[in-house]
């Protein structure tokens, strides 16, 4: 199937309630017709992180209105939509249930197919919507919930090359901010504080640097930050700035090593067959300027194009979910039955192994 497709997307996997209508042209070009995101930042800020039950409560109150608004902005009715795509994992189960049930009911009522989309696939395919990127390419997803390096080979064909064995990168930022009494979300707060700090005052660990496997680890860094802060408490503004700057430096050096190895591996694997290799970044941490500079430098050095979609498409949104649904439908992949279950754990790469600590339930993402 390669007709012109209009897809309604629904995203509720974490703390953004979002709905969007995306158009996919026959030639594969994409256009966002309507896009609405309601952030729950305020509701969670006093807790220094996302509280699942609060998130689920907010999703169910807001979602239908947002869908109406997205359709309105797109200037289409539900009957003019070709399919409904809803995030069904991985993520917080309470939120996933709200989005998926709304999607199921709307699909059943309108007779449209339902695509239960993997949230990570949404991030993975965004660069094809924004930049028309051809397969294969590498994607680095760095958010509050995920830290993954993924080889994107084709629609539905992904290899997880690296993932975090403990905390996500965004989580490390949030926890550092919380420890230092900075506001939530931690990413922007830590970055702001770091601007006036000395990145060489503290020598924080750079976990897994030097290891051949491409995984990440940030919990040791978090502990080191806490110990450093406690050892000099009470902390001054300058101490906070120095800790933040040193923390960012440690992360930058870790990523340089980890991602650098990934780029080299990509070049080896696709030597001769991929003329213009590309690294795409996604996730809220992609907003961090130090991280961006590090990735840009790495890409320049290795002959990669560095693609950073606009920030509102890097963070959680429904346009990417609609787009993933459109790509699946255009590729002739089957829609889902209405008994499909949400999956709090759902690795994009079916072969992904559960890492230490994730136990019998298998890989988280």
């Amino acid at each position, binding site marked *: 199937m390669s007709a012109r497709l209009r897809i309604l997307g629904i995203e509720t996997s974490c703390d953004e309630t979002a709905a969007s209508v995306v158009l996919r042209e026959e030639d594969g070009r994409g256009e966002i017709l309507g896009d609405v995101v309601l952030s729950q930042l305020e509701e969670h800020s006093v807790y220094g992180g996302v509280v699942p*039950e609060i998130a689920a409560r907010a999703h169910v109150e807001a979602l239908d209105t947002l869908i109406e608004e997205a359709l309105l902005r797109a200037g289409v009715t539900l009957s003019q939509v070709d399919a409904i795509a809803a995030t069904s994992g991985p993520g917080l189960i309470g939120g996933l*249930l709200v989005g998926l049930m709304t999607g*199921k009911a709307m699909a059943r009522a309108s007779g449209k197919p339902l695509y239960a989309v993997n949230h990570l696939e949404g991030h993975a395919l965004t660069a094809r919507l924004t930049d028309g990127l051809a397969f294969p390419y590498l994607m680095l997803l760095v958010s509050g919930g995920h830290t993954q390096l993924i080889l994107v080979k084709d629609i539905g064909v992904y290899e997880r090359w690296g993932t975090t064995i403990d905390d996500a990168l965004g989580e490390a930022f949030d926890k550092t901010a919380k420890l230092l009494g900075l506001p939530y979300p931690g990413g922007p707060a830590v970055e702001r504080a770091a601007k006036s700090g000395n990145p060489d005052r503290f020598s924080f660990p750079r976990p897994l640097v030097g290891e051949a496997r491409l995984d990440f680890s940030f919990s040791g860094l978090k502990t080191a930050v806490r110990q450093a802060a406690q050892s000099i408490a009470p902390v001054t503004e300058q101490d*906070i700035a120095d800790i933040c700057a040193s923390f960012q430096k440690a992360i930058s050096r870790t990523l340089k090593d980890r991602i650098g190895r990934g780029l080299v591996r990509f070049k080896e694997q696709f030597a001769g067959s991929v003329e213009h290799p590309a690294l795409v970044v996604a996730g809220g941490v992609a907003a961090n300027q130090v991280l961006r500079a590090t990735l840009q430098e790495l890409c320049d050095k290795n002959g990669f194009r560095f693609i950073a979609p606009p920030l509102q498409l890097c963070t959680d949104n429904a346009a990417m979910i609609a787009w993933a649904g459109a790509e699946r439908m255009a590729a002739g992949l089957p829609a889902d039955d209405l*008994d499909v279950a949400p999956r709090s754990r759902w690795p994009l790469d079916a072969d992904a192994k559960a890492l230490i600590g994730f136990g019998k339930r298998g890989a988280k993402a």
Partner: protein
Amino acid sequence: MIVLAIDTAGTGCFAGVYDAGEDRLLASAGADIGRGHAEQLMAFIDQALADSDRALADVDRIAVTIGPGSFTGIRVGVAAARGFALALGVPAVGVSVLAALAASACQVRPEQAVLAAMDAKRDELYCQVFEADGTPRTDAQIVELADAQIRFAGFDGIVCGSATRHLIAKPTPGVSQADACDIGIVARLGAAADPAQGKPSPLYLRGPDVKSQAGFAVARA
């Protein structure tokens, strides 16, 4: 008016198709499934529609239980109901589980006031008092068990729901002590509800159970 009723607030997962004009439940489907409401609800709705020989296009209103009950279960039903309402262009209304339990009890003893009391665990209960005609006498609330035992010691009506045993020694014969809703009652209450009161919204009666993280941070100079 054809009402599609949905109940996923407890361990049961039920759908019913009700004709308000005839005051008749045309068909219902479902089971006490414990878990898996999100997976099974659509099939039960399809079955109820098929058995009533109606299509979704015939439905004029969606009625859904809004709790109290399982937070997750409530949201499964409410999200589905609001999705149906949006896609079909019909109103959705919420039906309180306490009101549905009381209405069932009223069928047994029509002349008496009803106290619907559900075990909320943690030594608390969800409760509400209704007049014999179904009008609420109190708001739905969560009350500590010991307080409820004092407050309702001299209650002059019948008691229903899973917390009945905590409140009275001898339950009224024929009155249910379970928290399962009758889907026909849910549909009838939904048909009588006023859609102008707004979209169905969960009746949790209990906060999200989170602690502020103040105190986590290191001391500042």
